[in-house]
């Protein structure tokens, strides 16, 4: 509340030691991905402005990759936009989780909204306290936006000179980055662990069967697993009402009236 009431008060000093270095490494890792995105798009036959404009306006790595993949494979612009939107619908959940951390002014909210990504969400969730979260959001978000767009431009201009980036194992870097980022939250919270484990299994099993984007959303069913367990101590139970006489219950279960349709009895 207090620090959020005055905009523009994000300071580097609000970040715990080491976090800025971690953030900078994500900028670097994403820049490498950005270069390969630009290169792949242009190598696939798209003009340079498509990856560049997409990175500025859409600004969501996985959706951009899938949209460009569909466009270059001849899947058509409608399918490309629909798949990208499906993939990005998860950012609505992130934006609800991060709403407190952008600041209170409308400028901060309108600009900050555009900077909400998987990475910024992960960095914010790894921090405790309003100041740290706000600093983590804006510092990681602005830097990532700059790094992503510059690297996509560079990749698009360099074209296909890079060759196959899978050779460098870079495709393993992004999942590993996410894993390192969510690990603190998973260590601290057993409900998050259960929900995430269930969600990950659901998503991986569903991935071959459903269109891109749906499996990850389906993982939210894992939240049902978080509802059980000791994390949310229930309010002390009220003393139970005395049970009804047992004869009453046996009376109901022993009923042999088959004329009523199933389900209508209750």
């Amino acid at each position, binding site marked *: 509340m207090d620090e959020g009431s005055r905009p523009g008060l994000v300071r580097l000093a609000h970040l715990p030691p080491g976090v800025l270095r*971690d953030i900078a490494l994500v900028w670097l890792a994403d820049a490498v991905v950005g270069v390969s995105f630009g290169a792949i798009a242009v190598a696939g036959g798209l003009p340079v402005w498509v990856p560049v404009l997409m990175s500025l306006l859409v600004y969501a790595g996985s959706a951009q990759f899938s*949209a460009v993949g569909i466009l270059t494979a001849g899947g058509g612009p409608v399918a490309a936009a629909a798949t990208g939107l499906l993939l*990005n619908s998860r950012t609505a959940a992130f*934006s609800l989780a991060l709403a407190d951390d952008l600041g209170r002014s409308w400028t901060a909210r309108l600009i900050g909204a555009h900077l909400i990504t998987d990475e910024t969400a992960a960095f914010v969730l790894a921090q405790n306290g309003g100041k740290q979260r706000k600093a983590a959001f804006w510092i990681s978000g602005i830097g990532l936006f700059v790094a992503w767009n510059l690297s996509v431009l560079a990749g698009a201009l360099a074209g296909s000179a890079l060759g196959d980036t899978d050779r460098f194992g870079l495709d393993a870097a992004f999942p590993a980055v*996410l*894993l390192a980022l969510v690990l603190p939250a998973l260590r601290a919270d057993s409900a998050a662990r259960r929900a995430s484990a269930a969600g990950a299994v659901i998503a991986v099993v569903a*991935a071959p069967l459903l269109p891109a984007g749906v499996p990850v959303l389906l*993982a939210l069913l894992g939240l049902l697993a978080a509802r059980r367990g000791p994390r949310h101590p229930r309010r002390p139970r009220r003393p139970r009402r005395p049970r009804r006489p047992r004869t009453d219950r046996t009376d109901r279960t022993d009923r042999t009236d088959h004329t009523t349709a199933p389900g209508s009895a209750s």
Partner: protein
Amino acid sequence: MNATLACVLALAAGTYVFRLAGPALHGRVELPARVQELLTVGATVLLVALLATGAFTEGQGFAGWARPAGVLVGGVLAWCRAPFAVVVVGAAGATALLRLAGVH
């Protein structure tokens, strides 16, 4: 209008609306503590699902063994509280080495 441009603009507009949901509703709707907690856990669940599908799948198929093995190496390093750079380089390096060795 160019169809590709229309695709980019539609995708951009829709994505921005998703992103604005939280900040726009903020202050107008008071979310119960239970729901806020659920949203935080939900964000973690989405990130883990994203990393799991990213590690194991490529398109609709299996990504091969080299990538999940590399991610696992990164995960073990992160679990041992290795610096972030070591995690990233470890994951990419392990995957690259496995591919070099013929494991795909």
